[in-house]
């Protein structure tokens, strides 16, 4: 009988350990940060002259040594296939090497953490790039701390990492297992597992943390609601029963993204939107679910299965087969199909005042679209070549600029989408930027 490789967590390059790990800290790049925050006052009743970290006040996402700054601390995390992960400061253009990991197959980011995957060895390395934005809807906070390698997770097959406010899910397609990690602990340099969810190995699927719960597919492609400990929530509770009715209507779930409204899950029928009432202090943490059906019948090849957008905005974009782009406005609960002059390979929504949408065609042209009218407002022709497209490039957007990597020329282009796709800057690398993730957003 084939024995599945159990996902395990280990810090840095040390030995594998059991999943109920004590809080192992990999202190790769930073020890100095701690010294900055020693309390001036000893805690009451303590003989120690230094307060422990847990006695310190914590800002949103606060970690020792983090400072709040007046504007986003935007960085590009790039990596080559040999696992050299670099961080480029978009303000100063300074570049630092974060890690030398060995062969990697993917790099994904959530605006702060990046996860580098090595498929051959079944490891995912989580790196804290030390820059992040906290969105309070009417205002933002921008933080900066030391970057560091948080640690490694072991699993089987390609991994999908989905970050939530409470929990970060790492799903391994090979084993069908998902590790649920404490997001706050990642911020303090620890990999702490709160639970795991097991589904059928090999089946496509997703695991999406939402508040204090996790929505996951089972082997048959249905959605279920779990706690952050991984256990299925009591199916007899009223809110779970109500949620089940909506979740049952989501066939063949694929693709998810978090907006400032809620969490989107792509379905054959359209999308399911999960909402958590943030103002509620109720003990029952179960989110509510709404179905947002497509406005028309959509062929399987044309449905949205991969969503991208600037973080913290309500409208998200997805490639619509060869027709163009889907825009899903999670605030209005509405879909719009945006035809494009050429089929898209990648698309993402900036969702700013001018409703910019940025896409890359299957022939390597970058397009800027007006999301309201579908008009092409800018084009950067032949920005990447066929070899780059075959390898898979990545497109990231923030409040002012878009970034696209071109491994063939060892460059990343900075595109001013508000100015007809003008190339504002071009960053050149010594290593091949095969993978790209923007952080500090």
């Amino acid at each position, binding site marked *: 009988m084939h024995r599945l490789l159990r996902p395990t967590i280990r810090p840095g390059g040390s030995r594998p350990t059991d999943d109920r790990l004590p809080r192992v800290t990999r202190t790769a790049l930073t020890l100095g940060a701690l010294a900055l925050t020693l309390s001036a006052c000893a805690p009451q009743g303590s003989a120690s002259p230094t307060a422990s970290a847990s006695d310190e006040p914590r800002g949103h996402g606060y970690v020792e040594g983090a400072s709040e700054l007046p504007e986003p601390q935007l960085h590009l995390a790039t990596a080559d296939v040999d696992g050299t992960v670099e961080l480029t400061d978009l*303000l100063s253009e300074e570049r630092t090497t974060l890690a030398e990991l060995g062969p990697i197959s993917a790099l994904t980011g959530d605006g702060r953490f990046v996860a580098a995957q090595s498929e051959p060895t079944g490891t995912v390395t989580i790196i804290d790039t030390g820059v992040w934005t906290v969105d309070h809807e009417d205002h933002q*906070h921008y933080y900066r701390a030391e970057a560091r390698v948080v640690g490694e997770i072991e699993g089987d097959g390609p991994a999908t990492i989905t970050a939530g406010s409470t929990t970060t899910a790492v799903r391994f397609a090979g084993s069908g297992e998902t590790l649920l990690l404490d997001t706050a602990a990642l911020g303090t340099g620890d990999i702490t597992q709160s639970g795991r969810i097991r589904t059928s190995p090999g089946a496509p699927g997703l695991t999406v943390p939402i508040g204090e719960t996790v929505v996951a597919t089972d082997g048959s492609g249905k959605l279920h609601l779990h706690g952050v400990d991984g256990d299925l929530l009591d199916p007899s509770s009223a809110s779970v029963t109500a949620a089940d009715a909506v979740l049952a209507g989501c066939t063949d779930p694929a693709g998810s993204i978090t907006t400032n409204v809620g969490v989107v899950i792509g379905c054959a029928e359209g999308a399911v939107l999960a909402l958590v009432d943030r103002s509620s202090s109720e003990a029952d943490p179960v989110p509510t679910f709404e179905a947002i059906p497509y406005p028309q019948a959509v062929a399987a090849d044309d449905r949205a299965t991969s969503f991208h957008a600037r973080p913290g905005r309500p409208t998200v974009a997805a490639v619509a087969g060869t027709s163009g782009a889907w825009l899903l406005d999670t605030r209005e609960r509405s879909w719009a199909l945006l035809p494009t002059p050429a089929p898209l390979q990648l698309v993402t929504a900036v969702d700013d005042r001018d409703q910019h949408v940025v896409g890359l065609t299957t022939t390597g042209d970058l397009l800027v679209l007006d999301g309201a009218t579908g008009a092409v407002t800018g084009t950067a022709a032949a920005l990447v070549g066929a070899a780059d497209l075959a390898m898979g490039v990545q497109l990231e957007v923030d409040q002012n600029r878009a970034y696209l990597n071109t491994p063939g020329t060892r460059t990343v282009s900075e595109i*001013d989408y508000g100015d007809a796709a003008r190339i504002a800057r071009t960053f050149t690398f010594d290593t091949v930027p095969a993978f790209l993730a923007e952080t500090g957003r």
Partner: protein
Amino acid sequence: MRATIPRTTALLRTTAVLAAGLVLGTGLTSCAASADDRPLVVVTTNILGDVVGELVGDQAEVMTLMPPDADPHSFEISARQAARITGAQLLVSNGLGLEEGLTRHLETAADEGVPIVEAGSLVDVLETESGATDPHFWTDPTQMTSVVDGVTEALLEEIPTLDAAELQANAATYTAGLEALDAEMAEAFAAIPAEQRKLVTNHHVFGYLAARYDLQVIGAVIPSGTTLAAPSASDLDELSTAIEEAGVRTIFADSSQPDRLVQVLADEADVDVAVVPLFTESLTAESGDAPTYLTMMRANTERIATGLSP
């Protein structure tokens, strides 16, 4: 960052009894005072913490939850601080939705029977442009005199062991300080030509100040450092339009690259301005330019008056 700064420094300024306290402003005095039997007053923001410290002097321990140089909307507190709140004789909060991160702790304290005085309930509340209540009343010192009156009353009512005469004397002294500040501010802003009393800024916290001293707040998007690295006219469009329409030579903004912002505005938008930061929602540490409410207000007044004067 210091977790707790009991206000013994206030006492050193307002009474003659502890003339020997020469280490004013250092953490050492603060720590020595925290393990005592005095009543405990907990204050959420550091601006109100400073004011309450001036009122109670050495008669009570004032525990300020918000550290210096922090953001009142987003700071959170330790479990140890949370535990101490429920033992307070009085809790002073800003209210009006300012302390989003503390809501749960304040509710817990209220449930435990801790009396809470909300400063926002003592002032004449303004509305923001979007119709929400504006919690930044401290930018108008005359509003703070109402806060001083109300908090003093609450202290007398809830903590009978306090020396009423001393408390009232402190309140009178501080109110006189606020009135002097108000007069200084009125004089400084009155000297600015009426057509130039315009704050082009990315901070929406000066509504009360603007209403009191007849200034206009013009919100504007300040380009980020990334945008400034290789700008296009569209990046600067809103800001340069706001500056031109206001006809001012100073904008009030936090920017990590103020010099670059000035240069780009001159080069790309043909706008000649200075960029000056203001203190907005937090006091600084003792070593900064705004360690107390009064110094913060004077620093901002000086910067605004200098920036907008011909």
